[in-house]
């Protein structure tokens, strides 16, 4: 048996290219998959740690007027018997530039057992509470501080900046979230130089029936956890990785099929020598597993490396998009490694099952005919056509089902739809090409060489089919993703321009707000002021407006943001609206009069709102009912939002004053204004932001958001190109053999080479051309289904001719590059050698 196995494997000694191709397929498939899984696992670990932190899961209190709470507020509430605990939060800069979150806690009043848990054993409390205090942090935060794990306990690392600041001695606590330092509130106050101020008061969930006078109470239940928020993001990543895995497995199956076909003679000999059919299948399976383990291990190692490369971008994206802190270093649980191995092996067995099945069912005599299984290719084409049609029908059914779902639902179904679209197209590709070749063959009936070329291509099709399918999938995915990203980019930049109409945005200190507003209003540099306000409310009822049926009311308890803008000459013409009840002008008129509100697209999609519906919101003075006059796009927001005119928000929702947009007069001088504010009110710097700066930051966030998507889609394309190259290389030798007779018949070598390049370039062109509509459909699915479910907003579909041309060029380029190597070999091989090969 051992000998039989060695004999089977000896095939790869003679064909190292096939072995390389097999391993390459396994490697890339498993690398991309494990890379993405590593990122997801690491992020989930971060979320779990963030959710375990005592700052989550607690109700929080802030002052209604937006001023910071102080120690005096805390003591006053404690003396009134309220179980509140002060929390100080701020950021400091580590020596390497990382922003670290400092959380100062008061362990005696912090609700729950976690007060003591967070400080470790009770005996450590004294050290925690008294100078020099303690800094508690997770081990993966150490690198930012430039401290090694070994020297960490007790170390007092220096901080960035001019001030000679040091952290209290370090104590490791792996349960803390990354980049978070927890210390006693006295130590944090000294470090952050926050004096008597605190960030907020916290209390155990529902300990307070209502907010104390002048305060806003935010229930823990209304704070969405980062894990929930980012779920769709990770699903997106997983889908991309799955795509890469599938493409990789296409390569594997192609290589396996080839390796089996070339070994049919060998298999027959082995059977003839007494190896049982079952034993032979067992040996082949063993070979698969062996290859699988090697490929998967290599893949997992590279996957982790890939994840390390991508992780900082992922962390940045999650941080800016959802405010979720994710470690920039990987943190992998043991089951991650097993999972990666299992998925790759499972995929491999799936890809190899067809081969095993065929090997088990071919008769001993049948084995004698080389190319035996290719004989069934026509049957196979038919099967592919039927299967492709079935998958397409399934996709259609899914699409129909989705169209009856409320918008924003069905993220998984959306991915299913896109998967079905890709799979159906891939399955239908070989029958389509076969049909095309047959048709073309009739057209060129009088040109023997062209006819031969088409017939020859038909002969090659079984081997090329899988690589072509992989290429089709990768090209369409790439085109779809880049169309979506590109379209989003255009929409987003446009939207930024429409929303950011003021030249400066000023966030005045609350106590100076009125003075500054008055001063600005007088300033000759200023054309218009756009004050904003922001608050929270609960949406308790929706009264749907429907002309054709009775009005119906739905009760709910949804926390929403309420945001106030100033409808004036500057803002009204530019603020984007997606839908209105009776035109823009009417909508703005009702809005300015305080009769109506606008809602953002997220809220409209999630609750099925349309202009004309009426919302009932909780407000400090009771409930407020507003009519929805319009829906506006709100990219990048994760929460539902209701928009009101600022004065309305102030009077009806008691919202504290927020930032002020400053529109400069036609020849107003921004520098003079900045200087005036600095001299008169001693503000500037952080409080006053240039509009261009806001746009720069927003664009930066956007770019990061899609860095990973782009990187993964480019990698998938590279894998597909490799698949095609590998398939061509694997059969290059045999191809030469088939070309020899043509040469002998007098066809010049240059001509032969051109034919070859035309064959491949032509088929790649067909694949590329098919990828164009498919990619566009894919982009449509992404913007109209996936994005709505994942982010809450819909995008218009944009077509990018340049991207399409690039897709086509990539397809042909990849094919030509893949064909060039065998062609060059052909050029160098003396014709006699070709004939000799043919003879063997």
């Amino acid at each position, binding site marked *: 048996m051992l000998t039989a196995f060695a004999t089977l494997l000896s095939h790869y000694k003679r064909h190292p290219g096939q072995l390389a191709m097999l391993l390459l397929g396994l490697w890339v498939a498993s690398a991309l998959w494990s890379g993405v899984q590593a990122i997801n696992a690491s992020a989930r670990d971060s979320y779990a740690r963030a959710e375990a932190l005592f700052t989550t899961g607690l109700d929080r209190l802030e002052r209604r007027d937006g001023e910071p709470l102080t*120690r005096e507020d805390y*003591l006053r509430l*404690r*003396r*009134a*018997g309220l179980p509140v605990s002060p929390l100080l939060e701020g950021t400091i800069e580590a020596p390497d530039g990382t922003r670290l979150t400092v959380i*100062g806690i*008061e362990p*005696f*009043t912090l609700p729950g057992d976690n007060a003591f848990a967070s400080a470790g*054993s*009770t*005996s*450590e*409390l*004294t050290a925690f*509470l*008294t100078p020099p205090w303690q800094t508690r942090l997770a081990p993966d935060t150490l690198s930012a501080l430039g401290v090694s794990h070994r020297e960490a306990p007790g170390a007092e690392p220096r901080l960035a900046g001019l001030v000679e600041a040091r952290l209290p001695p370090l104590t490791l606590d792996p349960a803390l979230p990354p980049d978070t330092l927890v210390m*006693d*509130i*006295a130590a944090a*106050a*000294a470090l952050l130089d*926050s*004096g*008597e101020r605190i960030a907020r008061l916290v209390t155990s969930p529902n300990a307070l029936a209502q907010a104390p006078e002048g305060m806003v109470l935010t229930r823990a239940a209304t704070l969405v956890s980062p894990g929930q928020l980012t779920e769709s993001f990770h699903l997106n990543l997983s889908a991309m990785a799955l795509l890469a895995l599938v493409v990789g497995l296409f390569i594997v199956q192609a290589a396996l099929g080839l390796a089996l076909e070339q070994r049919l003679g060998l298999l027959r000999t082995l059977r003839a020598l007494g190896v049982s059919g079952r034993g032979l299948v067992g040996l082949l399976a063993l070979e698969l597993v062996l290859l699988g383990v090697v490929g998967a291990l290599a893949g997992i190692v590279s996957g982790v490396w890939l994840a390390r490369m991508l992780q900082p971008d992922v962390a940045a994206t999650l941080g800016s998009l959802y405010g979720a802190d994710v470690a920039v270093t990987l943190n992998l649980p043991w089951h991650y490694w097993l999972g990666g191995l299992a998925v790759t092996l499972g995929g491999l067995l799936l890809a190899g099952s067809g081969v095993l099945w065929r090997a088990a069912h071919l008769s001993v005599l049948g084995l004698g005919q080389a190319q035996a299984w290719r004989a069934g290719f026509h049957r196979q084409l038919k099967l592919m056509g039927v299967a492709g049609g079935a998958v397409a029908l399934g996709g259609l059914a899914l699409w129909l089902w989705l169209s009856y779902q409320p918008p924003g639902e069905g993220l998984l179904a959306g991915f299913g739809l896109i998967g079905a679209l890709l799979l159906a197209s891939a399955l239908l590709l070989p029958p389509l090409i076969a049909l095309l070749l047959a048709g073309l063959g009739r057209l060129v009936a009088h040109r023997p060489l062209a006819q031969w070329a088409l017939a020859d291509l038909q002969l090659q099709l079984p081997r090329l089919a899988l690589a072509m399918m992989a290429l089709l999938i990768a090209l369409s995915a790439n085109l779809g993703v880049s169309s979506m990203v590109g379209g989003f980019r255009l929409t987003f930049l446009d939207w930024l321009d429409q929303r950011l109409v003021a030249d400066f945005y000023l966030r005045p200190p609350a106590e100076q707000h009125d003075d500054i507003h008055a001063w600005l209003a007088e300033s000759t540099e200023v054309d218009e002021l756009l004050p904003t306000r922001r608050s929270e409310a609960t949406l308790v009822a929706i009264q749907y407006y429907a002309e054709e049926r009775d009005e119906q009311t739905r009760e709910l308890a949804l926390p929403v943001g309420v945001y106030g803008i100033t409808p004036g000459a500057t803002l009204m013409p530019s603020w984007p609206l997606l839908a209105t009840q009776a035109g823009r002008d009417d909508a703005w008129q009702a809005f300015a009069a305080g009769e109506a509100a606008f809602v953002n697209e997220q809220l409209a999609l999630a609750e099925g709102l349309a202009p004309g519906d009426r919302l009932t919101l909780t407000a400090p003075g009771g409930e407020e009912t507003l009519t929805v006059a319009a829906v506006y796009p709100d990219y990048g927001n994760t929460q539902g939002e209701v928009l009101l005119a600022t004065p309305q928000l102030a009077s009806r929702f008691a919202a504290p004053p927020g930032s002020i947009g400053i529109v400069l007069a036609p020849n107003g001088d921004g520098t003079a204004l900045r200087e005036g504010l600095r001299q008169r009110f001693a503000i500037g710097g952080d409080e006053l932001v240039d509009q261009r700066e806001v746009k720069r930051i927003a664009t930066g966030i956007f770019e990061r958001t899609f860095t990973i998507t782009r990187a993964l889609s480019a990698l998938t394309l590279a894998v597909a190109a490799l698949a095609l190259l590998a398939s061509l290389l694997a059969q290059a030798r045999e191809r030469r053999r088939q070309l020899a007779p043509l040469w002998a018949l007098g066809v010049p070598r240059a001509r032969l080479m051109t034919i070859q390049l035309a064959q491949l370039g032509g088929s790649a062109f067909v694949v590329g051309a098919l990828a164009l509509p498919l990619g566009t459909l894919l982009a449509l699915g992404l913007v109209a289904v996936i994005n709505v479910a994942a982010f809450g907003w819909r995008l218009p579909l944009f077509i990018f001719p340049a991207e399409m041309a690039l897709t086509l060029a990539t397809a042909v380029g990849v094919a030509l590059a893949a064909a060039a190597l065998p062609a060059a070999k052909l050029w160098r091989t003396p014709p006699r050698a070709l004939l000799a090969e043919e003879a063997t």
Partner: protein
Amino acid sequence: MKRVAALLSLLVVFWLSGCTEESPPTETAGFAGLGEEAGDFAQAHEEITLRFPEDHAAHPDYRIEWWYLTANLEDERGEPLGLQWTLFRQALSVPEEPPPGERPKPAPWAADQLWMAHMAVSQGDSHRVAERFARSHSQDESGQAGAVAEPFRAWIDHWQLASRVEEPDADTFAELNLSAHQSDDQGGFGYDLALTAEGPLVLHGAAGFSQKSADGQGSMYYSQPFWRVEGEVTLDGITRKVSGRGWLDREWSSQLLGPEQRGWDWFSLHLESGHKLMAFQLRGGGEGGGDYRSGTWITPEGEPTALAPDEIDMAPLATQEAAGREVPTRWRLTIPRAGLDLIVEAPHAERWMDTSVPYWEGEVIASDAETGERLGEGYLEMTGY
């Protein structure tokens, strides 16, 4: 007196359990660390003369201190009811001596004192307990917890024991209000009480220095055992008018116990004759390793007589289970010098204080050992069981 018990809790929480990997010390000294050496803290000793009202306030230069009130009350239906309110102070570090004439404001949130408070309301089988913690700085008298002398006020959050005397130059300690409330899932419990002193302060031991072990450790210790108590008590959401007698202990020290002492049994009794009796035994640390006993016999006029260790005899007669532990709830207490031979018994065993450091504290009834005649009532505190 008894106060120690709770005290320990404080200690236990913060010092005691002190065995971390880095400092594998030293087995814990005494119960709940109350036997730790005084170090740089001031030390209680016989030559100290107590001064009032100053000594009603906190003594941050001593490590530990408490204000400890118990009361035996009756509600409007005539049902007996007991309550406890205790404020413990624990110094985190020896306060720095401010330069003369200067009192620098401490940094925000900086703390050199930790505070712990317990309250309990007990009636029949009901026994409700609450606990609070706070930090403060000895230079800052407006913190979350503290104790000041003039006018007297001891507080943590909204729990407070404060003077209601308004006349200038009067003794602000003579009339106090006690208020503490806690919400729970049974409707909440708490009290608002008016305390009126009907007798003088009583200094224990040698003019206020109370020795706690044979080798001389001790504390400064005085009591106000003559409170008349009127007010309202809420239990399980029901508020009732109550009246009765209260006993307030004040004690501070830097090393209360000898290192071998592991727990104590502490009695404070109001006798029908108008006499009061305080008696305790510290288990371990007496002559030759026996128990160390001490006490004070107080006349109705408030004249104290210190009782020497050999003038007190106390022995458990029966135990009962409380919160899963065997606790002696029936005692024989004999003070020949006062002509007392008492059976002291807790009518309800379930008075376990399930606080961060647990102990037993509950009402007791004293009766004559021979005739069985009821002679008085009071409180018993037992630790280390």
